[in-house]
């Protein structure tokens, strides 16, 4: 990567554009407080820079979309937000990711506790193949020793309702999770993350392996979940970013190029690169 050809970056512009510049979308929570703030997150794969010095703010109960061409670092950045890189050999993360005033990369912070607060939904639905639907939903509780039947039942129902899956699986909770459709499995994965009361939900292209109808259901679900959780979604689909998000961040070659409220981003981007990407000139 030749640094000279890199596009201009926004080195530290943690605050998204205030609503009011341009037309604010109705869905934007006007002055939502920051929930999670990253400061200079850099991810290195050996000597290769995956993500370079990204500072972003995720506001409480909003949806932030991360967009950009393949290999731009958006997924790498997303995975840095709940310390998923800890497990990969040779991956180094520097910088801060502050959740409610606490840097999740600070010494002594247990990644396991962090991941209970910051849930993740992956590109492909990942139900645990040997478990029933019910056991999948409560896996995060049951496997840490919670045995209270009534509590588990309650959490399972609440989470499945939140994930808009309850009606479809209510009468077959004991059936194997691998037996439901891909879209249902993806909502099951969301329910599973909600069951441990995740406050922030990271979604890595959650609809890219789903059909249009399942995609629509997930998008509707995101709109509902926004009332309770803060969502960061990586998407390849710009229409999706425009439909579901309040804020959009554009990544290119490991850099955060531009971030603003979604409406501004798609109507009046500041950077030429952004404009080229969203108008389909490359990517």
């Amino acid at each position: 990567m030749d640094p000279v050809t890199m596009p201009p970056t926004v080195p530290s512009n943690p605050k998204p554009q205030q609503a009011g510049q341009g037309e604010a979308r109705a869905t934007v929570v006007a002055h939502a407080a920051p929930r999670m703030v990253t400061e200079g997150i850099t991810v290195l794969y050996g000597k290769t820079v995956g993500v370079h010095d990204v500072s972003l703010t995720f506001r409480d109960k909003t949806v932030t979309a991360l967009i950009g061409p393949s290999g731009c670092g958006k997924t790498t950045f997303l995975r840095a937000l709940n310390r998923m890189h800890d497990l990969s050999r040779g991956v180094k993360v520097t910088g801060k990711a502050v959740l409610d005033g606490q840097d999740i990369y600070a010494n002594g912070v247990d990644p396991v506790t962090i991941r209970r607060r910051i849930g993740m939904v992956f590109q492909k639905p990942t139900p645990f193949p040997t478990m029933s639907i019910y056991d999948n939903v409560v896996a995060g509780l049951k496997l840490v020793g919670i045995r209270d039947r009534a509590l588990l039942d309650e959490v399972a129902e609440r989470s499945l309702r939140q994930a808009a899956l309850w009606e479809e699986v209510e009468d077959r909770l004991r059936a194997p999770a691998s037996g439901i459709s891909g879209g249902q499995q993806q909502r099951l994965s969301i329910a599973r993350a909600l069951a441990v009361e995740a406050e922030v939900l990271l979604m890595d292209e959650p609809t890219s392996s789903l059909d249009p109808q399942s995609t629509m259901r997930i998008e509707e679900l995101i709109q509902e979940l926004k009332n309770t959780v803060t969502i960061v979604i990586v998407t390849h689909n710009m229409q999706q970013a425009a439909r579901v998000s309040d804020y959009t961040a554009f990544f290119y070659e490991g850099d955060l190029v531009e971030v603003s409220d979604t409406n501004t981003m798609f109507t009046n981007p500041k950077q030429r690169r952004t404009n080229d990407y969203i108008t389909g000139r490359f990517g």
Partner: protein
Amino acid sequence: MAVTAPATGSAAPPAAAPRGLATVTPEHLRRRYRRDRFMIGLLVLATAAVLVPLLIIVWYVVSNGISAVLTFDFYTQDLGSPARALQGRPTGLGHTILGTIVVDALALLIAVPIGVGAGIMLSEYPDHPLNPVLRILNDTLNGMPAILKGLLAFSLIVKPMGTFSGISGAVALAFVMLPIIARATEGVLRIIPWSIREAGLALGLPRWRVVLNTVLPAARVGVVTGILIAFARAAGEAAPLLFTSFGNNFFSSTPLRYLMGPVDTLPARLYSLAISPYKEWHAMGWGAAVILLVLVIVTFVGTRIVTRARHATDL
């Protein structure tokens, strides 16, 4: 530009080039089908090459041993001295079958937890400093001659105890099983998609929980198969037992003595009967071989059925 058919290897010869690669004539298709049938034929031959010797062995063993195993005494009596067989008095391998079950079961009990644990270590914790050491040790153990494993168990258990014993035989057989189970477990765990581990970790589950409750269950059938292969291999080994469980011509006087004293096992007994000078004992040796075959086959088929049934209900 014509839309070309998907590339199908060398099926379209250059001679047909003028018609373009897009055209698939009936002649081409016939040729492809012929080639397909030819390849299937080769595979059938290869399968036969594996199956025929196996069937010959089974038939040969069963036809020679069937007369011995169809007697009641074979299962209820112990061997005693050759005189019993020569004079037509009751004799059998009841004590051998019992001893084999005790020694093999104990060997499994020792080898399965350690072997599966080592397999988990090899597959799931590649960055752990002990990992490369474990890998070298495991490979060495795998390549070590079985008789040396017997010697190892001899010096570890028989010497300190002062007697040959079922326990030492089980430990020797566990050394045979261990590296096979560890390798098999590592192999199947590696096949389980990484995404399952990430999904577990993303729920805030500790690493070991993720492995034990999500990865290992998904790999269950493969792990069980690996254990069976190890068991089948160890059940047939005579060498490690020669100076560990040693052998015994009689039922032990107390159940505890199956563990603490010398016991008979089928492979070792098969050998001693075969090299004996008595025709009657040779027949019993064939009988021992039949039982050994049945033991291995029943274990395989039985466990297959059990894992499949479980698989169908919880998966």
